[in-house]
């Protein structure tokens, strides 16, 4: 059953479809919110609220705007960044850098072996692409995406002019796009 079908069933009031969507995507959603909030209790709440929002908005999902995992991640990341901003805590800022050298080995236990393998493969490609970026470009992307910093804040934090921050972001995304084109050629 593909994601779009699960969403149709959710919109029709089938909560088992929500369970299936949760099994498939909660590992990714949890990884993202943990990276942002760095707190297991917060992450638990955020994961629940993300999938709850998905349940409530299943009927309004617009497939033309991108894949369902992307939709879930956008909701989750936005909530997680709100959480960090609202609490004014900078707990996440001390978290390890995005290359995750000290991160535990992947333990993805939901969604079935195929999904887990696909997720691992995507992870491998994304990480490899990031590792090939110059450090300052990778850092710019990380500050914006995982810490929710604006370009002005990044410029202040790195001591670089705004134009440099913009250029780094652009170069980084361009290179990512090239590296990741292989992913988007495959059906989601």
């Amino acid at each position, binding site marked *: 059953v593909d994601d779009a079908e699960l969403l149709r069933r959710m919109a029709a009031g089938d909560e088992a479809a929500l369970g299936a969507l949760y099994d498939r995507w909660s*590992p990714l959603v949890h990884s993202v919110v943990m990276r942002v909030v760095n707190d297991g209790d917060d992450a638990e709440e955020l994961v629940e609220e993300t999938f709850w929002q998905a349940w409530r908005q299943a009927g309004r999902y617009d497939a033309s705007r991108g894949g369902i995992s992307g939709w879930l991640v956008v909701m989750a990341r936005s909530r997680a960044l709100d959480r960090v901003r609202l609490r004014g805590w900078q707990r996440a800022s001390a978290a390890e850098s995005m290359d995750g050298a000290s991160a535990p080995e*992947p333990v993805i236990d939901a969604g079935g072996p195929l999904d887990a393998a696909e997720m691992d493969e995507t992870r491998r490609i994304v990480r490899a692409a990031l590792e090939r970026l110059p450090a300052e470009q990778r850092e710019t992307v990380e500050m*914006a995406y995982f810490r929710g910093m604006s*370009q002005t804040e990044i410029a202040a934090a790195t001591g670089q002019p705004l134009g440099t921050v*913009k250029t780094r972001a652009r170069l980084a995304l361009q290179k990512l796009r090239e590296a990741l084109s292989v992913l988007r050629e495959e059906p989601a």
Partner: protein
Amino acid sequence: MTPETMHDGMRAALAAEALGALDGEERTLLHAHLAACPACRAELAELRASVGTLAYAAPPAAMDPARSGRVRARLLARAAADRDSEEGVTSDSTLVAPAPLRSLPPVDDGDDVTRVIPITAAPPRRGPSRLPWLAAAASLLLLLGTAAYAMTLRGRVMTQAAWMSAADEQQNRLERALREREATLAAVSAPAVRVIDMASTGRTEPGGRMFWDPRTDRWTFFAHDLPAVRDGREYQLWLITPGSRKIPAGTFRPGARGQAHVEATFALPADSLQAVAVTEEPTGGLPQPSGPIVIAGGMSSR
């Protein structure tokens, strides 16, 4: 500025926008430009797709299975209640009977093996939310600290969004708390529920009571006056079968007054429980008990 240089300048800002990092006047200008420039809109969509894959750069953080099972069960219960209430609203009948109290439905993972949600302590409820005040403080700082320009639209929208988000979270938290209470009440008041009283084996007087509904596989455990545990230690709950098999049923730490409340879904044949016990073990628990029994109790005859 000619339209061409305007376009080039705006194009340079698309990556920052895709990352959600564009701010100030520039963002307002870009959005005005986007409305009139299909090429930039298309490029922004492409860049956003690249940004979307950054989710996979987060170090994989597997959710603790007990937590994940709890979240899943809560979501399904909320969804079922939500669906029922929607159906109630749209029903043709003039009067709709109130929905009965609902215990959490068993988790159905689509195969024949019964899914087990390990018993763990319910997460501590946080006190009254300070988020609205934090949001107010945050927005005040925002207003004070930014230049006059940034004070206009964007600041207001962000503040509103923060308030909305805080209110939304608060409501969801209350709804969830209410549903958990309803599930607990249903789990201890159902007709077939069996009760296991647990008494202390030590000098202090802790005690506990387990409510087990074999029809719904629902376990609801309350304890009181448990001694505090040292760092690195937790209490572990055990279900003991007539053959003396000891089934680990999760770990927990007592609250400040020694109280504990644990809920779980676990299938056990109706005649295969002899006793329930709590031991003190290293954090995370062990496959078999190693510490002394703190409280224990056998099935009461009915």
